[in-house]
């Protein structure tokens, strides 16, 4: 161990802010070099160990790590299949990763419906601060996603998101 903090001591330290009506931003520090964090964000074997929910039974974890390459995650969660996919827009290891993202429960999404995730990794003294800025097309879809952690879980909110997108279509 270096001068870093004890393992697990940063648990629960992620902070969420709302920079605008259509965005949210997550900030979290890790006692690891940026290269390693970048690897954990872009390597299927590692992504499967942390992304989504602990109860995820992974079915697909495809990462085509090149600009315009596709990513797709599908998992079974409480008996239901949930899928997400998008495209890599910018890949600048180990400091920047820009992807698009869509929940697959949304019928016939248009290109402008995709959320844009801008991941920034800044390393200082062996500590990497990760910032994930997520830009949604509308305040409504952002708020649906933000509400997804409420009681009733993801399914309820995804159903609501689906209804909302249907109504908007």
């Amino acid at each position: 161990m270096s001068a870093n903090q004890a393992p697990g001591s940063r648990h629960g330290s992620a902070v969420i802010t709302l920079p605008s009506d259509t965005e949210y931003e997550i900030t979290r520090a890790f006692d690891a070099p940026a290269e390693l964090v970048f690897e954990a964000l872009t390597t299927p074997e590692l992504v499967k160990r942390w992304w989504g929910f602990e109860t995820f039974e992974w079915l697909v974890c495809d990462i085509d790590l090149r600009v315009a390459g596709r990513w797709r995650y599908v998992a079974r969660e409480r008996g239901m299949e949930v899928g997400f996919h998008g495209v890599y827009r910018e890949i600048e290891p180990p400091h920047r990763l820009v992807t698009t993202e869509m929940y697959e429960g949304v019928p016939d999404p248009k290109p402008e419906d995709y959320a844009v995730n801008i991941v920034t990794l800044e390393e200082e003294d062996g500590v990497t601060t990760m910032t994930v800025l997520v830009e949604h097309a509308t305040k409504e879809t952002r708020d649906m996603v933000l509400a997804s952690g409420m009681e009733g879980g993801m399914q309820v909110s995804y159903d609501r998101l689906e209804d909302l997108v249907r109504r908007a279509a």
Partner: protein
Amino acid sequence: MLVRADGRYRRYRVNASALEPIHEWVRGFERMWNERLDRLDDVLAELQEQENDP
């Protein structure tokens, strides 16, 4: 925050949306992301342990 020196006074303007409190309804989402990133934290710790201790 913008600061403008104006004679003897200093004017401060705060970006209100940046200070918007995270309301109760976002707490569950925040918890979900914390759990997710805590798992990432554990994965990173394990990878570094393996590197240091082959």
